[in-house]
């Protein structure tokens, strides 16, 4: 019961999903399943949110290192719940949407959440530079090719690259850096992308089959694996 039922469920649902693609009356199944998934995910959220609370409360109770920050996390979490679920600080009261302008939830979203999100995202600019500095070195043939491709594209998209090769006459315009960049994007890049995509498609088929057939079962907590 403990071991067999989940495998049977996976097999049946998997098979139904595959064949529903070809059977028009089952077309809506995909939406129904994703709806189910959304509902399950909400219930699972009790587990996740509960886990978050538990960890930070534990940290607090045991006065572990940096416990002060746990208060902040918990506080933020609870304030959001109060503002969003109980709709505290909502000008329209309990009936209004918590995302209307002027509501506490929306204010926190705009003035705290958004700056944090965009700054974290902006860190990428720094990391892109440091990764290029460290990784784009002509260590071997592969790395050199990577470097050249990146370099041409990078140059080709700046005014600098345009100036660099603007002297090349129109009849050889293919050799101008911006044009080379476009060519790389459209030809070798496309080829690589396609090979990767076909590979991914086949890999997914094989892995999904292993899961559906119950050959791969570690995720289900099967002890015999």
């Amino acid at each position, binding site marked *: 019961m403990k071991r067999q039922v989940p495998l049977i469920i996976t097999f049946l649902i998997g098979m139904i999903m595959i064949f529903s693609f*070809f059977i028009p009356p089952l077309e*809506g199944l995909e939406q129904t399943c994703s709806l189910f998934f959304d509902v399950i995910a909400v219930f699972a959220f009790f587990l996740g949110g509960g*886990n978050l609370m538990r960890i930070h409360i534990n940290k607090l109770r045991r006065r572990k290192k940096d416990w002060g920050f746990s208060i902040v996390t918990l506080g933020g979490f609870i304030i959001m719940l109060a503002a969003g679920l109980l709709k505290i600080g909502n000008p329209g009261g309990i009936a209004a949407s918590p995302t209307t302008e002027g509501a506490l939830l929306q204010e926190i979203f705009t003035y705290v959440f958004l700056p944090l999100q965009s700054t974290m995202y902006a860190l990428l600019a720094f990391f892109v530079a440091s990764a290029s500095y460290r990784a784009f070195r002509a260590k071997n043939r592969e790395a050199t090719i990577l470097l050249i491709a990146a370099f041409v594209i990078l140059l080709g998209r700046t005014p600098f690259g345009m100036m660099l090769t603007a002297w090349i006459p129109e009849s050889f315009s293919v050799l101008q850096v911006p044009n080379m960049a476009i060519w790389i994007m459209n030809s070798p890049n496309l080829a690589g992308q396609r090979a*990767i995509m*076909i590979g991914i498609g086949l890999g997914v*088929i*094989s892995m999904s089959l292993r899961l559906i057939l119950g050959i791969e079962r570690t*995720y289900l907590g099967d002890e015999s694996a």
Partner: protein
Amino acid sequence: MPSHPTTSRPSHPAMLLILFTFFLLPCIVLAQTEVGQTNIEGTPIVPDSEQIVAAPVTSLIAADHKYDDGEMIELSWVPSIDDQLVDGKVIGYKVYRLEDDGEPQMITELAPGSNAYNDQSVERGKLYSYFVSALSSNAETPSVRTAPIEPQREWLNYELLNVLIMALVLGGAVIYFIETARRGKKLFVRKIAGLEAVDEAIGRATEMGRPILFIPGILDMDDVQTLAALTILGRIARIIADYDTKIFMPVSRSLVMTAGRETIKASYQAAGRPDAYSDDMVTYITDEQFGYVAAVDGIMVRERPATVFLLGAFFAESLILAETGNSVGAIQIAGTARPAQLPFFIAACDFTLIGEELFAASAYLSGEPKQMGSLKGQDVGKAIAMAAILIGILTVTIGDSWDVEWIQNITTGLTEIFSTK
């Protein structure tokens, strides 16, 4: 080519004035005083003699949409001859429907130039007939009604039959090789560098006495890459349990947390060390992409893991995580099926599983013959793809160049086999 919306105007301002005063103004006044005489658009209804009448649409055909659950009827027609870009009388079309010979109901309004509409609000078991009116600025000309039609349900989508057959061929190949391997035939699988390094990476963490960090991407369980990450986690956790190293897995989805716990727990049980497992190995952080990244970055610099696994679906955060991991000196094994993020892993990690290798990893790590068999099945798919590309390109090029019919037929056949509509 897009064109500027053209409005036909009287050429002289005075004409406009006359038109306005004598026709339109009374109409508007009339319309405003007598409620109920206006139709939905507020276009005044005028006496017949003033109507600009457009020719009706012709050849209206209503047909059942093939291969569906009986939920769509396709309408097509030839637009009114007065429907022209310049000085056309037609300003649009209205589609009317009669359900089981009831009253006509307008179901949609379309722009000039339209010649088809798919009615998706039909039900099986009812009869529908249609007519389409051509609209001029102040009149409607209905077309002939179609014969009543009932939407049909089909049980198999024959248009996708080729997809089904190809899927069965590939699935069959995978299952065939799994069976072959199960019966004891030895199958060769080449080395995958990133996976050969797993043992070494875990051993390193053990030696250094530092934890291993496992990041399963940021998508939920409804993405295959997350599933792939979890299957790999099962194998890795088994080795970790054997080595008695610490594993830590911060996740951004509650369901992944649950599944991750199940997986690690099972691996520890399989290794005979259920006591060493703890739920704290897997922690939920937040669903939000960059909030999760902020926390994981913090964990990386504070816990200083010796080994970091970044396997699953990654987006813009891939580089932030990989660079931070690199800065704390961890060995990093990454893998994703998102082509856009692969370069960042290649640049910042020690080993990268590229696309397909991510899905093959768990089978490879298991070392079980039947799992390896499935990899061989994948190769059949690749061989078919390569053959199709080779033959396809040759025949289409030659066929185009020299007009050889039988070669062109091969191309057509191939295109049909691989089309998905």
